[in-house]
């Protein structure tokens, strides 16, 4: 975050606070003797643009992330899931993501899906994420702000989007090559490609953090 951006933000009204729904699964919650909490691994915080919010990650994602030894969390931003609606555009949603992240015990990886990727990208410019993962991003800012703390960035898109202009723009902005997964953006939670995508993300995270 640039100092100038911070100055601007502290001089504009703060988004109205909301009581956010945050769903958490810790490795211990899985009651599996094989799985143990890895205190060195960063927690993971997910958000999606879909109106279900945090619960979209409940069926598969959170359990699988926790299964890799990480504290797994998902947040519903204002108006999603069990979080009450409140005024505010993408900046307010990014604020919700930052608030959820700072509420986690340790520096978190931010994972954003769909429009949630745009919020995660904005959030990463205000909060030093341990890593930033953008899954099938939509409505990304034209020039995504530079993340603070120079986190590693992973961009994952469905096969159909691999060559799209939007994908290239995001890839160019972060200087990364997109990872493609089978299926499309809608299938990331339950579709046939979902498990493969998750494993790819987890192994990327596991490489170095």
């Amino acid at each position: 975050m640039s100092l100038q951006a911070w100055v601007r933000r502290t001089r504009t009204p703060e988004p109205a606070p909301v009581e956010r729904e945050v769903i958490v699964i810790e490795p211990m919650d899985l009651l599996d003797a094989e799985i143990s909490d890895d205190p060195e691994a960063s927690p993971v915080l997910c958000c999606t643009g879909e109106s279900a919010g945090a619960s979209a990650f409940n069926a598969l994602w959170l359990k699988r992330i926790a299964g890799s030894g990480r504290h797994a969390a998902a947040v519903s931003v204002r108006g999603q899931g069990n979080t009450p609606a409140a005024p505010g555009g993408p900046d307010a949603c990014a604020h919700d993501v930052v608030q959820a992240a700072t509420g986690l015990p340790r520096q978190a990886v931010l994972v954003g899906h769909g429009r949630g990727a745009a919020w995660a990208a904005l959030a990463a410019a205000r909060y030093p994420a341990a890593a930033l993962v953008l899954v099938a991003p939509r409505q990304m800012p034209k020039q995504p702000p530079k993340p603070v703390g120079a986190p590693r960035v992973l961009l994952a898109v469905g096969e159909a989007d691999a060559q799209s202009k939007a994908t290239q723009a995001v890839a160019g902005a972060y200087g990364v090559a997109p990872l493609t997964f089978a299926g499309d953006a809608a299938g990331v939670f339950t579709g046939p490609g979902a498990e493969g995508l998750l494993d790819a993300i987890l192994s990327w995270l596991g490489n170095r953090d």
Partner: protein
Amino acid sequence: MQEYSSQAAYDRGEAVCVIGAGAAGLIAVKNLRENGFEVDCYERDTVLGGLWNPENQHSPLYPNTHLVTSRSQTEIPDFPMPDDWPDYPSSVQMLDYLKRYAAHFGLAEHIWYGSEISHIEPVEGSRFEVVVKPAAGSAARRLRYGAVIIATGHHWAPNLPSYPGQDLFGGTVLHSSRLGDGSRLRGKKVLVVGSGNSGVDIACEAAVNAASCVHSVRRGYWHLPKYLGGEPSDYALARLRRRPRWLRGLLVDRLLKGPRALADRMGITPPDHGHADEEPVRNGRYLEHVGDGAIDRRPEIARFEGGEVFFTDGTATRPDVVVFATGYRPQIACCPPKLLGIEGEDPYPRLHARMFSPHVETLAVAGLVEPGVGTLPIMHWQTHAIAHWLHIRKGDPERAVNFRQQVVAESAQYAVESTGVSSRHRLAVDAEEYLAGLGRIIDTLEQEPAQ
């Protein structure tokens, strides 16, 4: 100093030494780590959080200390406070916040508690030898670092005035930092001396809990309530900075009209400098307590005489307890004064851009300013700049030289000048100008390296 000279210093290579684990030290450790540095942080006490931790042996917290700056203007820029906290969090919340920050970024493992740094000294050009004061029974340790950041705070050495006859006074005399939980005020006749934020807060505490409260003030301050126009005052005023200059003046005057008129009614003469030059007193209750007679304002003390205290207007009072809320002197005992630009009798450092040693490139001080706004963001941007600077210096000496020139140029603006108004004034900076300067320094540092 012979005990340790026989023993070789342990070399920590390019690691950086941070002295103090208060807000400034914690933020420094986090930002250095983010820039890839190994860090050892030394804290003389057994707890983190510095002055916000009542378990710190020397904590200057007084009863009911709350922030005088509002949450959004005080929180660390990349780690906001919970947004369901009040506009003005308490000291308990502030400590909780600093603990969360430390836990979140895994800072505790880099902190060495119970380790007072007694001395630092440049060696081999720009490296430093650091001496850790021996704990009872053991020898002093010496270590070598690539750089040192001093974050020891400036609220540890009480500034105590001495008036004629004070020594013979029979009642209790204490500095505001020794007030503890305030039980010493209950039911007593109290005289509070000093009209900064602490003095005014303590006078309000005494107005409610003591038998009576006389408040001796030497000079005028700007008095601001904690809210202006329905918003936290610091936020309301900062927001106006976005307006063009000509309009801003009018809007500020309009916002401050009410508080100014009230201060006037209470006989408070405004100071002879603009409100941005110095931290205003932020307390909405004070003037009301003056208005309802619970606080009896008097001028400066002239002398103590027996059990009585006489003021310069000839009036007198007979207090049980005298609380000197007369501030602190900056004191960085572990560092040779010359490295901080301290010369002669004057105890005030003269640093480049209020943070870099004028003599050694690898020595910096974090948090030695009174910006009149939240201090944590200032510490964040300072240590962000310092960490970047050390990083660049390591990899690209040529850019480092350019940068140095930029810093020296920026520094000319913040030359320490004595206005003689009060000692605290000497650490004051205009937050707006200082932040803009820090912004320019950071921009220079972050420019893409020339290929």
